[in-house]
């Protein structure tokens, strides 16, 4: 067994063609056992840890965080400490990555094989004594007729047709040879086209030459995650008829309720946790909003699985609080804290990101009064929550200072018409105004 081992970009699943390194978790010089984490690789929206498939000392890292590499590419070298640097250098220089691409090789297209199937050469006689008649004495009926007409003795002819059969051309040649006359008109069998005659592989037009890095211009390729987010947002805005409804709610009662909860409980609860709970209960009362539109089918769900937005260094993620309607505000707060933390460190798994029935996006912490969000298909609506701010309100006919918050519902007009959307916000406002109902 070689004591220098290559660590390559792993193939996770039959379709994976490349992965982006998000960071190295092991360092050069570190001794690793089987299963120790080495680096994190991102594909689509998930980041997975690559574990050491064999034991050894990490001697060299040759791949960079922030870059994507094809499956099979060399990422690092593990070896015994006794192996010299020069040997590691030589190993790296001589390394050949596995060819895992599904694309055809870049060579020019091979000549087209003749249309008729190539007959398999008859196996060695010892193999299977076939009892079907073999090629000896076989003549094409056209050749036989021609031979008869020309008075040619077939037994004198060696056949060059399929399986050694005597062909018309063979008879013509024999006749010409016999009579010494010019050979019969050349047969018109089309020869296999020469490689030059075959159209070269179509050149895919190169993208317009991108400017090299110049002063003032910094080029950075979008990560797979960003690309995916981008594609989905574009699809959403292009295909869903968004419209927006806004409602400002007065949250003094809710804030007092939250104070009480935080005073007595061990769990710290935020305004947004209360909003999530209110939204979840609301969704059960407005089943058209707790739904997915798939093609021309509307799927309504019995459970309110509410996603909430988390800003991470690499992009916006929306982890899901499953069955939020069945969780108390405190339980929601616990779930949110856990999910948000893992979202920021890139440790969410797919079932924690997929399958939400509704999304709540809260940018209040950034001081925005109001904003509107883009729906995540196949969901049919999304709620944007602004900051809670002091503002003048009218209470019992007099001016007072209230704590207001503007909610903006973006809804899919194909499924939720104005009245339904407004109704949803009305119920939500009521709930938030009566926190005892949460």
């Amino acid at each position: 067994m070689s004591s220098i081992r290559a660590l390559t970009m792993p193939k996770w699943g039959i379709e994976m063609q490349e992965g982006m390194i998000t960071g190295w978790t092991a360092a050069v010089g570190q001794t690793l056992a089987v299963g120790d984490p080495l680096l994190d690789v991102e594909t689509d929206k998930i980041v997975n840890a690559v574990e050491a498939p064999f034991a050894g000392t990490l001697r060299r890292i040759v791949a960079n965080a922030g870059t994507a590499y094809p499956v099979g590419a060399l990422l690092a070298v593990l070896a015994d400490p006794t192996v010299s640097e020069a040997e590691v250098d030589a190993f790296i220089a001589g390394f050949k990555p596995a060819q895992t691409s599904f694309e055809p090789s870049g060579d020019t297209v091979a000549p087209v094989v003749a249309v008729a199937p190539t007959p398999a050469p008859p196996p060695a006689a010892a193999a299977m004594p076939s009892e079907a008649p073999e090629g000896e004495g076989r003549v094409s009926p056209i050749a036989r007729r021609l031979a008869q007409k020309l008075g040619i003795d077939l037994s004198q002819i060696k056949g060059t047709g399929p399986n050694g059969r005597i062909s018309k051309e063979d008879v013509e040649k024999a006749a010409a040879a016999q009579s010494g006359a010019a050979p019969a008109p050349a047969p018109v069998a089309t020869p296999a086209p020469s490689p030059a005659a075959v159209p070269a592989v179509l050149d895919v037009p190169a993208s317009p030459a991108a400017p090299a890095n110049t002063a003032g211009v910094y080029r950075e390729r979008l990560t797979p995650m960003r690309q995916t987010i981008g594609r989905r947002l574009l699809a959403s805005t292009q295909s869903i008829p968004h419209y927006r409804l806004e409602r400002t709610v007065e949250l003094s009662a809710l804030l007092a309720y939250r104070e009480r909860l935080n005073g007595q409980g061990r769990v710290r609860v935020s305004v947004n946790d209360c909003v999530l709970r209110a939204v979840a209960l609301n969704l059960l009362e407005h089943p058209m909003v707790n739904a997915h539109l798939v093609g021309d089918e509307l799927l309504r769900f019995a459970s309110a699985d509410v996603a909430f937005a988390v800003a991470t260094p690499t992009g916006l993620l929306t982890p899901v609080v499953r069955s939020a309607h069945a969780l108390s505000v405190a339980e929601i707060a616990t779930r949110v804290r856990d999910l948000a933390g893992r979202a920021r460190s890139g440790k969410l798994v797919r079932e924690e990101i997929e399958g939400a029935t509704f999304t709540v996006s809260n940018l209040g912490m950034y001081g925005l009064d109001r904003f509107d969000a883009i729906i995540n298909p196949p969901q049919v609506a999304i709620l944007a929550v602004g900051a809670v701010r002091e503002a003048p309100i009218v209470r019992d006919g007099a001016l007072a200072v209230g704590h207001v918050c503007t909610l903006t519902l973006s809804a899919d007009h194909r499924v939720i018409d104005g009245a339904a959307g407004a109704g949803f916000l009305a119920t939500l406002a009521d709930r938030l105004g009566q926190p005892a109902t949460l």
Partner: protein
Amino acid sequence: MSTDTSASPLSTERLLQAYRQMRTIREFEERLHVEIQTGEIPGFTHLYSGQEAIAVGVCEPLGPNDYIVSTHRGHGHCIAKGCDVIGMMKEIYGRADGLCKGKGGSMHIADVTKGMLGANAIVGGGPPIAVGAAIACRNRGDGTVSVAFGGDGSCNQGTVFEAMNLAVVLKVPTIFVYENNGYSEHTGVDYAVGSGDIAGRAAAFGMPAEKVDGTDFHAVHAAMTRALQHARAGHGPYAIEAVATRFYGHFEGDPQLYRAKDEVKRQRESMDCLGNFCRTAANYGIDEDTLDEIDADVLALIDRAVSEARQSPPPADSELTTDVYVAY
């Protein structure tokens, strides 16, 4: 689990050979799991880890003239039927000197000379073929049999029902072994098998059927012995449902989102047939050192297999159109 130390009808030698077979399958599959991630192995593989006691329990009492027909998860059956391990590894790597000259791969791995009539990429494709082989056995009159491996997935295919009925009607010696590992692709057996009773279905077709713990080599072997007695005597087909688990996904790369998070971890501890065998090995007069020696031996063999496979050349282009026919 039997604690009667005189219980096994197998000699120590046969027991050790059975253990060696199971260990070979386990290490073969575990190593493949690692090597697949290098990208050097093309296409689909379906790993058998967790089900070794079934393949070996069923194949141990078979002779060289008995036949088996396998499934897409066929490495275990292939090894248990005595196929060349290195040739298998080369085939899975798609090399010219693989068991099938690199033309079949993991899902079509076969050695007809050893009575292994092929892994089959078509779910349910095997049992009718096994019944045909059993017709040949019956006509020869030499007491040989065929085994049709299947799973909780294939047991819902029409072809499997047809095969069972045909075997009963013609009274041919096919032993239907259903490996119930709990999942057919990404769907659980509790959902997919309507009656919830695979052995019961086979019985309903008119053959004796029993259900055993597929993680207990001795239990599987005993059931197979009963099945062989029945089939070799010309009484017709028999069915065994063996319940186990698969440690890996349906195919390599399957993220297994349909399994609870720590299910595999728990099952590797509680449902490991090799662990089960080792735990009771002392009852059969086998000590740990002997088993450890076998383990080391097997690991060396697998190492050699991978190393040789990686160095073998791929098939030449000229092989593309050979072996389509005997003569054309």
